[in-house]
């Protein structure tokens, strides 16, 4: 079999079953946890104690669980929004900005129309958040359709533009006249705050409803089917008589609208005000969630919970072991690297020269 010139190892495409792919993900997570453990060990801390304190910190008490869920809500909602766009292979990394604009739109009604009946006000804020995020996402979608403008970079820029709009509102027209010193926006009236259900704001219900809704939308509706055809091949879609532009615009509006909803949930449920920390990197984390979940809404829930547990748990580990909260970012990074690396084996397999494929 040994031919001269054949490389020692070459890579071939691999087709594996869904079950095997799922198993591979589990291996990846285990490998990632081991790598993270090695890092913790290098810091001179027993990794078992560290992981135990992460789990305890995130899940041990009712309050801890509530805090973990609170972290998970915006992450899950925006991951679902991103899923819509990514399914279409529209690389929307502008969730951060769409969350912010959704938050700004919702805040407008919270500040200036807070006399509406509670139910109406919340509903108006929800719709405003969706319209805000949707419109913000339509901008790159429009230019993508019209001029094929690179959406990755465009949405990235829009994140910062949105962020500084908050700065503008905080320092300018919406500044709370009663706060002395550092400019900020007034806290919302009770009337404009999302109600709590089981101790956590109702955003979690919105998120879970969205999971089911988006799963059905993508899998069982005509529009969902159109999204995946456009994602696979725009030419095929065109040949089949689909209006690609319309689909792209519609899907991006929906994607942004869902992210805008996350912004609304943040201002109305968590912060009760609008500040430049409203998105705080959630839009970027959500991309990672959507990707790791392979754009499956239900898997998004699992991945979101894992990341939220890690984040909440690390903040507790900080006080136990005297480590900075940044350790959560490092661990997240290491875990992501591992999982991204393992993804390789789901798609390819190395073949060695002296016969036999590696398993």
């Amino acid at each position, binding site marked *: 079999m040994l031919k001269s010139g054949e490389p020692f190892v070459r*890579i*071939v*495409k691999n087709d594996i079953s869904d079950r095997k792919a799922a198993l591979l993900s589990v291996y990846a997570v285990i490998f990632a946890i081991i790598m993270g453990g090695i890092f913790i060990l290098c810091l001179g801390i027993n990794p078992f104690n560290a992981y135990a304190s992460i789990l305890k910190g995130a899940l041990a008490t009712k309050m801890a669980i509530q805090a973990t869920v609170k972290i998970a809500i915006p992450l899950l909602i925006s991951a679902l929004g991103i899923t819509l766009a990514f399914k279409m292979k529209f*690389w929307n*990394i502008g969730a951060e900005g769409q969350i912010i604009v959704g938050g700004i739109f919702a805040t407008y009604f919270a500040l200036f129309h807070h006399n509406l009946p509670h139910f109406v006000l919340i509903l108006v804020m929800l719709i405003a958040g969706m319209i805000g995020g949707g419109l913000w996402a339509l901008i790159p979608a429009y*230019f993508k359709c019209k*001029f*094929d*403008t*690179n959406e*990755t*970079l*465009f949405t*990235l*820029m*829009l994140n*910062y*533009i949105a962020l*500084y*709009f908050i*700065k*503008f509102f905080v*320092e*300018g027209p919406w500044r709370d006249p009663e706060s002395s010193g550092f400019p900020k926006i007034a806290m919302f009236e009770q009337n404009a705050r999302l109600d709590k259900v089981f101790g956590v704001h109702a955003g979690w219900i919105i998120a879970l409803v969205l999971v089911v809704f988006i799963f059905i939308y993508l899998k069982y509706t005509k529009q969902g089917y159109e999204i995946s055809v456009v994602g696979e091949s725009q030419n095929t879609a065109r040949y089949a008589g689909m209006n690609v532009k319309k689909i792209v615009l519609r899907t991006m509006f929906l994607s942004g609208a869902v992210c805008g909803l996350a912004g609304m949930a943040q201002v109305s449920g968590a912060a009760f005000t609008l500040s430049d920390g409203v998105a705080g990197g959630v839009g*970027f*984390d959500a*991309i*990672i969630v959507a*990707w790791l979940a392979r754009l499956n809404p239900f898997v998004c829930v699992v991945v979101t919970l894992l990341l939220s547990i890690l984040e909440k748990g690390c903040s507790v580990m900080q006080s136990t072991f*005297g*480590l*900075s909260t*940044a*350790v*959560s*970012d*490092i*661990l*997240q*990074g*290491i875990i*992501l*690297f591992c999982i*991204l*690396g393992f*993804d*390789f084996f789901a*798609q*390819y397999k190395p073949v060695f020269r002296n016969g036999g494929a590696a398993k």
Partner: protein
Amino acid sequence: MMRFIDFLYAAIKAGTPLLFGTTGEIITEKTGNLNLGVEGMMYMGAFAGFFVGYHTSNLALALIAAFVIGAFGALIYAFLTVTLRANQTVTGLALTIFGTGFANFFGQLMIKHAPNGTPKLSETFMDAVSAKGIPLLSSIPYVGKLLFSHNVLVYIAIIVAIICGIYLKYTRAGLNMRSVGENPAAADAAGLNITFIKYFNITLGGGICGLGGAYISLINGGGVWNNGCVNGQGWIAVALVIFASWSPVKALFGSLVFGATTVLQYYVPKDIIEIPNAFYVMLPFVITAIVLVITSIKQTKEGAQPLGCSNNYFREER
């Protein structure tokens, strides 16, 4: 007039870390990889540069450390995207998260172990990185202050950008790597070693980004370590790549413009023109978005993202 010179001087100073980051990212993108980890690599460089500078008081060692750690970050990215063919966008984001955490985590440890809780660079080190005029030239009125009285890193950044410009445009290696970035299949057929070329240029680009981080922690920080010092400048650098239409030499001009917009608010007379501060800081991003649209309308091959960007190359996939 002096006020205007002061303004340009400040713009150059503010634009230098952006110039490093942009040059590094241009090299990376030209070889066909969109690395969104610039922010992370700059953070890693910022920490490593400061840490080594703090302990050795040696500028050269500090810069080498920043370069090496930036290159290391890029190497992780290269391994994942080139060898393991992971999604470039997500890998870049992961690198940003990792790098940010890395700098803030070890920065916090450094703060904990420093006397008075403030790690401070030594006098000799601060003297080495302070702005020094080039003898004779710096005493030319106006021009001397503007061009010949900066700290040494400003000149390094300019030289690096020019060398990279020459490398891309006038050397065989540069031509090879650009062909890999535009059309890897053709480059592969022509017998180029795609894997090596990608690895080399991605790590080189990452190292240059690391230098940009070192500039931020060593110069902008005033000799004291701050967690969170890079603060989005890596992302501006990614934007600047577009503004400079993937040319390191144009990046010289671009980083001056972006640097100018970041300091503009301190130099515009408030009594004459009154614009909220937020719009000043928004300016670089708005300009970049507009540039992005204009280049896409013009559809020029010249000033556009390399075609192979953000797609991983797999030989057997046609």
